[in-house]
């Protein structure tokens, strides 16, 4: 460690042979990280809510299917899931569709990472949503039914609005996880933040890995902190007075 040449200005240096600077690589990486994390989060929230709700449905067949979905996506590592979507799926599809995925699909790494990360996270969101619904007193559902609501109406107007408020804290950590897990997408070649970090510290090396890695780690810390604050704000906004952690 003694003869390590410190140089904190490394990211402002110009990439040899171009008129780009290394910090521009990091910014572009940050852009992809945020894009893939946010779009995957939208997929995860929508699908996860549907599947989490389905797991509590009285229909055994529907609930069983939803359970199978959650188990499938929870018990295979994310990196393996991304490889399945990226390398295996095109081979399993009919020739024409497979060829389209391999040759003419726009932004293949981005869309694969978005869908793969979205589905992976949706299983986790589903578990949280289910827990939230199960945490409500049984009387809530019966009260809704007694009012003459149909079951879908009970979910829409009685159960889900309360369940979502209960699960905001665990959803906060899932939202933070989406940003962290997006780094796995470098394995299928998405040029996100960690990919760019490796690029700068790798072959093109100005060879100051510690400085670059510190900067990238700080960016992830800022992202995690921002998500945390945003969710805390939402939690305060939607809380029900006199209920759960409702305060006043």
């Amino acid at each position, binding site marked *: *460690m003694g003869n*390590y040449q410190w140089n904190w200005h490394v990211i402002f240096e110009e990439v040899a042979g171009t008129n780009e600077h290394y910090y521009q690589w990091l910014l572009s990486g940050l852009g992809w990280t945020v894009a893939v994390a946010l779009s995957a989060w939208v997929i995860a929230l929508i699908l996860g809510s549907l599947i989490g709700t389905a797991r509590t449905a009285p229909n055994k067949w529907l609930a069983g299917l939803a359970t199978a979905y959650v*188990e*499938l996506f*929870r*018990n*295979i*590592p*994310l*990196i*393996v*899931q991304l*490889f*399945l979507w990226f*390398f*295996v799926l095109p*081979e*399993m*599809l*009919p*020739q024409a569709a497979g060829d389209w995925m391999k040759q003419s699909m726009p932004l293949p790494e981005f869309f694969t990472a978005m869908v793969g990360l979205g589905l992976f996270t949706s299983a986790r969101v589903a578990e949280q949503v289910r827990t939230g619904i199960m945490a409500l007193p049984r009387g809530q559902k019966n009260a809704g039914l007694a009012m003459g609501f149909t079951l879908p109406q009970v979910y829409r107007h009685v159960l889900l609005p309360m369940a979502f408020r209960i699960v905001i804290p665990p959803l906060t950590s899932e939202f*933070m996880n989406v*940003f*962290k*897990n*997006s*780094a*796995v997408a*470098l*394995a299928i070649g998405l040029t996100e933040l*960690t990919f760019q*970090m*490796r690029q700068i*510290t790798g072959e093109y090396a100005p060879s100051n*890995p*510690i400085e670059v*890695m510190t900067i*990238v*780690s700080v960016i*992830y*810390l800022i992202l*995690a*902190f921002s998500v945390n604050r945003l969710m805390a704000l939402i939690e305060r906004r939607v809380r029900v007075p006199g209920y759960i952690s409702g305060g006043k």
Partner: protein
Amino acid sequence: MMQLDWSAIPRSADFLWQGFTYSLTLTGFAMTVGILFGTILAMARLSSNALLSNLAAGYVNLFRSIPLVLVIFWFYILVPLITGYDVGAERSAYVTFAIFEAAYYCEIMRAGIQSISRGQIGAGQALGFTYLQNMRYVILPQAFRNVVPLLLTQTIVLFQDTSLVYVVGATDLLGAADKIAHRDNALVVMYTAVAVIYFVISFTLSRAVKRLHARIAVIR
């Protein structure tokens, strides 16, 4: 749809087994060191010494906020720089996972310790136990017992996460399968096999943890 040649798996069974053994060893090592270190961290977090508890909280929050892939790169580069030896991807991963997982195990152990009623601590003190004796004989055995299912669930997550050592080229189960996949041009077969192996193991273990949880809950 293409014709699949599954014979690539038996042909490379030895190499795959070697990768799988590494995944298991890494999981076992990180679990053992992670729980030990995590317990110490949890005690530090709950300590009345503000400096100690802030340091431990900082450690935990730091590792819980950055991606594991990034931490793997960190230690892949730092371990050789600090020790002066070219230890390689496989061995640097032992350090990575032990240090990283400790942060997660710490939070579980902290919840376990906090689930013990205050009276237990008072009772231990009344018997003349020192802090460490109190922890060793009264608090930790009960805390540990309460969170065994959570610790095991975290270990299943850890087992799946070890597949990320792929990014520094280590030969774990995924790394081994990937090398053969590229050598024999058998991507579909190899990745599918890896997915099935991970699924069967993780699913079976998580079922077992669920049963254990139910049994412990009844006794308590």
